[in-house]
């Protein structure tokens, strides 16, 4: 199925969950937060959250920044 991850279309196995996606993307040890269709998916629900085709996923991190 196709998912939109950080603005890019990606092909992933049907029914994949958030833990599997993080593994697939090589982000296992990264500190991150995830939003699916503009709703936050808490870390505690990663294993039970299964994606559906067309989901828009944002995976974010903290980076250097100050004002604006």
């Amino acid at each position: 199925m196709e998912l939109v991850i950080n603005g890019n279309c990606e092909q992933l196995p049907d029914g994949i969950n958030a833990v599997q996606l993080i593994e697939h993307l090589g982000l296992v040890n990264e500190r991150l937060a995830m939003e699916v269709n503009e709703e936050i998916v808490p870390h505690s629900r990663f294993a039970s959250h299964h994606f559906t085709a067309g989901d828009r996923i944002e995976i974010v991190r903290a980076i250097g920044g100050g004002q604006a």
Partner: protein
Amino acid sequence: MSSVMKTATPGTADPLMIDGVEYQSRLLVGTGKYKDMEQTRLAIEASGAEIITVAIRRTNIGQNADEPSLLDVLPPDRYTYLPNTAGCYNEADAVRTCRLARELLDGHNLVKLEVLGDEKTLFPDITQTLSAAETLIEDGFKVMVYTNDDPIIAKRLEDLGCVAVMPLAAPIGSGLGIRNPYNIRTIVENANVPILVDAGVGCASDSAIAMELGCDGVLMNTAIAGAQDPVLMASAMKKAIEAGRESFLAGRIPRKRFASASSPIDGTFF
């Protein structure tokens, strides 16, 4: 708060209190614009800052190899992270950013809200800022808010429940210094929450002036990161903030038009 003159003996504790938490440093710094992570780390250390702002952005997928992350270099157990809604031009984006930041930082709910009005000035969009502050406070966030140097709006943001109000001294990154000291002073005098100058300082003396006006602290990024020697400027800013604070607490002499001799007239032999 700042409007109340208080005395302090040099070297004694004079903490900055934000939402009931004590900080020893009154200098808050951003973590953007540095040459590399090592320079970021050295400058932040030299600044003595305990609260550091960070931006929330997309994770680089497929290219994060072994590059050190900010959280490795500046561990969140040592610094208080202040996620910033940098780059947000409306309430919805700002609220979304804060919610992601809270999830990212395990429920940490202290945030810096800024909703920008336009790219040229980076002045705040006040109507969006007010409504975003209300939404975030309702949602349990502790909001430190970037605003303009308008005393009426500063008070309104305090009344909404912001834990600190942070007027600009001059446009973000401009280094123009305190352009409206009278308004900053009025904001400080009216306030019951900490007032921090956020944006516009260019050099150490600008920071000292902000503190002498009675501000509780200063938040800056470009003035340090953009200096020829950021680590040295970070150290200068630390001292200027401390000097300005002590100068404010000490109470300056009144300005007089003419001279006033320091030596006694009694005992002159000429």
